[in-house]
């Protein structure tokens, strides 16, 4: 199995965790680590690569491109929807910059 995941940084305060969950994607909260979850599900040989820097760069690139093409893109969505996506991406980027959100790329094999 191979996948990517965005998750809240470990060791956050309650307030920081709330901010991470508000700024991140819907399923960003975790009660365990990816490695533990994969092992519990019968996977081994877990390889994990931190891709947070690339995540930050990609999020910033989407935002910059969208801001450069607001007029073209906003008309493709219902009123206010694109503006909300822009606001969500700005909040996400700020959370990444604050160290609240990480992204990882994992591969693992079935035992």
């Amino acid at each position, binding site marked *: 199995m191979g*996948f990517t995941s965005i998750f809240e940084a470990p060791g956050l305060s309650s307030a920081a965790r709330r901010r991470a969950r508000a700024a991140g994607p819907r*399923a960003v909260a975790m009660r365990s680590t990816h490695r533990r979850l994969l092992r519990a599900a019968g996977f081994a040989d877990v390889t994990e690569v931190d891709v947070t820097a690339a995540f930050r760069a990609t999020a910033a690139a989407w935002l910059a491109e969208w801001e450069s093409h607001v007029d073209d893109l906003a008309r493709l969505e219902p009123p206010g929807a694109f503006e909300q996506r822009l606001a969500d991406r700005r909040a996400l980027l700020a959370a990444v910059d604050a160290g609240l959100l990480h*992204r990882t790329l994992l591969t693992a094999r079935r035992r």
Partner: protein
Amino acid sequence: MSVRDEREARALFDQRYGAAQVQVQYEIERRVIGGDWGANGYTTMAQADALASGLGLAASDRLLDLGTGRGWPGLYLAGRTGCRVVLTDLPLDGLRVAAARAAADRLAARAGVVVSAASALPFRAGSFDAVVHTDVLC
């Protein structure tokens, strides 16, 4: 993720995939992630390549792509490695785009689409050699 969250996510992606992509969106996607699959997540071509390498994907493999949207990265991985791929997601419109792309890229013989939730897959155990999902858990 709650049932309500799932419903909202599904409604959002139904709406998003129901709208045809326009040229400027493909141009932006190429600049941001390096491809033109109608994606808007964070998985770059380099990361898709890393998944292929990490999984050791080969032409003899059967790959399942969960939450594929419009076919990214499953179709790309099928094209790159020669593997067979089944693309699954809930929004039908995204899968229609993926099927059309598979045909356009001459991958239709090795690519199938199935409307399915990842939590209730209609496949027997052992049907696949590898599973990928990107920008799905979140």
